[in-house]
């Protein structure tokens, strides 16, 4: 186990998280008011090209560090307060998305991430596409962009946590 090289690396690197901007003015949707600084998210890929997944990955990485605002990705929709849905909803994913939504306890929030999730984007009208996210489940917060920048996703999450 290379403890000393790793320790040197930790010392040399220090803090890589970028400074947090000012706090959001208030909750971005009325359902978020009850969360008060803690939001658990379940990510659902409804047919995305994985571009948005890379950006979500970096939102929770050390640089953007969305966990400092109280947002956390969890392993089960039962643990979640909000769903993070990416991609146009393909025919195969329409039912699983619906079921995942129903597994979340009330009040449940849906965040549509990326152009595809919001309006179909590149894949709008494709033969395998059942619709956009709002055709299947009610969307509360939309994050446009192809893919959206990590700052935009982090800002949307801060709107939910209020921190």
């Amino acid at each position: 186990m290379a403890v000393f090289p790793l320790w040197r690396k930790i010392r040399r690197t220090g803090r890589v998280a970028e400074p947090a901007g000012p706090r959001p003015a208030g909750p971005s949707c009325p359902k978020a008011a009850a969360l008060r600084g803690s939001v658990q998210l379940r990510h659902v890929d409804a047919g995305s090209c994985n571009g948005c997944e890379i950006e979500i990955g970096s939102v929770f990485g050390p640089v953007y560090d969305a966990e400092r605002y109280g947002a956390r990705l969890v392993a089960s929709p039962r643990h979640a307060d909000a769903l993070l849905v990416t991609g146009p909803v393909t025919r195969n994913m329409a039912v699983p998305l619906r079921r995942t939504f129903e597994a979340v306890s009330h009040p449940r929030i849906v965040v549509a991430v990326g152009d595809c999730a919001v309006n179909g984007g590149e894949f709008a009208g494709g033969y395998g596409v059942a619709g956009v996210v709002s055709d299947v489940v009610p969307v509360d917060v939309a994050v446009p962009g192809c893919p959206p920048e990590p700052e935009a996703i982090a800002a949307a999450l801060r709107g939910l946590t209020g921190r």
Partner: protein
Amino acid sequence: MTIGGLLATAGQVLLVMAGAPVLVGLMRQVRARLEGRAGAGIAQPWRDLRKLLRRQPTTPTGTGWAFRLAPLLLIGTSLVLAAVVPLLTTASPLDPVADLFAVVGILALGTVTLALAALDTGTAFGGMGASREMTILALVEPTILVAVFSLSARVGSTNLAAIVTATLHDPLRVASPASLLAAAALLVVVVAETGRLPVDNPATHLELTMIHEAMILEYAGTDLALIEWASAMRLTVLLGLLASLFLPWGIAGTSLTALPLALLAFVVKVTLLAVGLGTVEVFIAKLRLFRVPELLAGSFVLALLAVASSFFLA
């Protein structure tokens, strides 16, 4: 039963209840800082609990009493553990219960209830998590028993308070080979029992690698909050037990005046242990599941050597 003992036990339970989420937050914060993150702050688990406690629990179709009972039983056993283990005082009114066998039994009761609840959901991950937890439990419980035997053999009692008092009267015992071997063995099993690295990764989202998390996938709202809270309390109590057995200085007896000092000593000891554990976790990866029994068998051998040396060298 004395007033001092009663007060200290009540304080001990309240302290563990209030402090356990903060301890988990502290360990996460230490990890976050070492990973170059800013971290969510040590109060984040409390924010999570506050929110979860007000959310509605769900009962999945097909689940029965085992699923509904588990969170209550788990939090109940954790509270009993927090009351009987000598953390602040050795003069607890529950002293007769503070027996080694009772403590290990209560610990196992909580784990088994959760495993039964996981089986009750009937999902693939629930069954998988339960079977893994049972594998670990079967190796952890004997190690805890044997490791503390090596300490109780010299005292002639399996009462935890008696062991702690004896160590207080004869501090050099801590440096004896039996005590050191038992400390190493207990540290490994505490890490395994509380589901920390390298046995289980508390931050994982990958279903195939989870143990504890796989068992609680179906819980929501208040039920989930109780389970998370109970897990944090078990971690705090086990770290506290480790501190009491091997660094007992500061623990109060029957007197009231020693209580503030005992409180301070307990907080400092458990904080140091948690920071140490959090730091070590940054440097290690999770063990492959099939290697975990090797690690636990190793710690069992250490415990066995501790008993042998307490018998032959003392």
